[in-house]
């Protein structure tokens, strides 16, 4: 279909109505019908006289390609009408689910000669994380009396909008889980090359000369050196289970599905650990296979993590086999975020712990999952049965020494992290 000005039903009505009345007025000698014909014929003539001949140029743009969920950006339409015969310009933006538009429905209309194209802007606000295609906007321009219309609804005006997950509020006051690292900003449980003062001790072969504490050495007559605590980092692996998405997702401010909770919680944990200098890796099991982001730190890395999380989609074609993603660094703190809806998911946690990893499972199952569909009693009953089974299975996992905690926002993991720290301290036999 070509882009051209088309006469509208209104113009046909005015033309045929006016002509018809006038014809009958002449043929039937009814001059009163000329009175009835006047408004219609006048509108038809008016519309024809101001008929546009040149199609306007339209440019559509999206203010930002990446925003946080809940933040807004603007879809802007610029209309250039060189002929000056376009009067009203209407816009309807195609918005996918989880995209709120303002004005409502993504619909707006302006008088181009009077208002200009400045008001042709639609606020676009993603209310759920994810990558979505917004647009194209249907742009319809009409001439005088709505007699002629030109429309454009082109797929090449589509834009991709990535809504990064807005991390849930999270903070952990628990001490870090100890691990045998030797670099990083956290004091290690052993003395080595570092920055934090530990003690002054006699010189040993291998000590660096610049570590010699001359005052103590002169006073005692033997060489002494300044000992420091080694710096170590923490390596946190976020293991996001997107093989199941349970519950209803209503976006920001509404109910959250299990994947919503997992992604937002993972974002919060990543933000917290990167904020204190830890290295964070992401392993996500989702549609299309396993997605990995290697461990790193820094705000740019956090952005990268969030962008990868925003592209996660639940796997719908294959069931969870309980496989463990290969290549998890030994000694890492693995935070597994999962709804634990199936037995293989729980088995995965046990397998990870068997491999010698410190595993912490964050339970992301929505608390109201059994009552989320009040219209279907059978589903509710099945969920209640499954939840009872799941409770028993989770208890079994906990008895295997794996902590399972539901996600409850700030401080969710404090108790567990403190326990893990204490166990690690006992294991390594070092300072607190």
């Amino acid at each position, binding site marked *: *279909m*070509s882009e051209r*000005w*088309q006469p509208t*039903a*209104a113009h*046909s*009505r*005015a*033309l045929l*109505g*006016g*002509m018809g*009345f*006038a*014809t*009958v007025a*002449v*043929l039937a*000698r*009814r*001059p*009163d*019908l*000329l*009175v*009835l014909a*006047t*408004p*219609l014929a*006048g*509108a038809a*003539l008016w*519309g*024809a006289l101001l008929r546009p*001949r040149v*199609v306007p140029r339209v440019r559509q743009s999206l203010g930002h390609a990446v925003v946080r969920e809940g933040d807004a950006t603007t879809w802007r339409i610029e209309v250039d009408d060189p002929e000056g015969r376009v009067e*009203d310009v*209407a*816009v*309807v933006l195609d918005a996918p689910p989880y995209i709120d538009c303002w*004005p*409502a*429905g993504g*619909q*707006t*209309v302006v*008088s181009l000669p*009077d*208002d200009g194209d400045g008001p042709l802007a639609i606020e676009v606000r993603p209310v759920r994380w994810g990558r979505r295609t917004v647009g194209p906007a*249907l742009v319809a321009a*009409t001439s005088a*009396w*709505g007699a002629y*219309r*030109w*429309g454009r*609804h*082109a*797929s090449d005006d589509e834009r991709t909008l990535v809504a990064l997950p807005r991390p849930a509020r999270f903070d952990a006051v628990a001490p870090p889980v100890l691990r045998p690292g030797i670099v990083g900003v956290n004091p290690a449980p052993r003395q080595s090359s570092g920055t934090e003062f530990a003690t002054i001790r006699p010189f040993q072969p291998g000590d660096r000369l610049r570590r010699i504490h001359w005052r103590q050495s002169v006073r005692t007559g033997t060489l002494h050196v300044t000992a420091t605590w080694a710096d170590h980092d923490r390596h946190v692996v976020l293991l996001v289970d997107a093989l199941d998405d349970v519950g209803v997702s209503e976006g920001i401010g509404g109910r959250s599905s299990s994947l919503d909770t997992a992604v937002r919680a993972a974002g919060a944990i990543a933000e917290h650990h990167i904020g204190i200098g830890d290295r964070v890796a992401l392993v996500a099991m989702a549609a299309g296979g396993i997605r990995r982001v290697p461990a790193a730190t820094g705000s740019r890395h956090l952005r990268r993590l969030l962008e990868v999380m925003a592209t996660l989609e639940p796997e719908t074609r294959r069931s969870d086999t309980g496989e463990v993603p290969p290549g998890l660094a030994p000694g890492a703190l693995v935070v597994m975020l999962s709804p634990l809806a199936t037995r293989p998911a729980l088995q995965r946690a046990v397998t990870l712990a068997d491999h010698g990893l410190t595993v912490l499972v964050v339970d992301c199952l929505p608390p109201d999952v059994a009552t989320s569909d009040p219209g279907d009693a059978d589903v509710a009953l099945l969920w209640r049965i499954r939840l009872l089974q799941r409770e028993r299975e989770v208890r079994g996992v906990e008895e295997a020494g794996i902590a399972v905690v539901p996600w409850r926002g700030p401080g969710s993991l404090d108790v567990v992290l403190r326990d893990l720290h204490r166990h690690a301290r006992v294991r390594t036999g070092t300072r607190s």
Partner: protein
Amino acid sequence: MSVVGPSAAGWRPLGRGDGVNVVVRALVVGVPPLAVAATWAAAGRGRPVVVVAAAALGALCARRSDRHVGLVVVALVGVNWVATVDDHTTPWSVVVACLLGVFHAAAAAFGVAPPAATWTRAMGRRWLRRTAVLMAASGGTWLVVATLDGRAGRGRALVLVAALALLTAGALWAHGRPADEQGI
């Protein structure tokens, strides 16, 4: 690239719209039965079924403004007028003409904006001003008709034929030109 115009798809009924949209919709539904009622008043006789039919067609027109239901409404009002009114100079013709003008303007304006869009003040003013001009023109036509009707001139038939020829030529001109003249 796919390009479709709103005339093909029509506006999607996404919302109830703002105040202006509601008024415009009410005019599209309410004016046709009013026009038929005015015809009834002019003729002193009428049939309620025609009023009901006009209201139904108006409602249909408000639902699908991109179809030619409005033309059927106009035809219904015209045929009813010819069939029932005998007085060629009755001032009720101005009333019916104004109502037809309002109906046409409302139906045309209804197709200009999506249902949930908010009209700007400039748009409202422009459409009101132009509708008022057409209503004034109807009054002027009635004055001319009423003045000429009292004079049984010899050239009256000739004037009517000339008017018919002029209208035909104007309609052919207004209907459109070949695509190569559209500047596309």
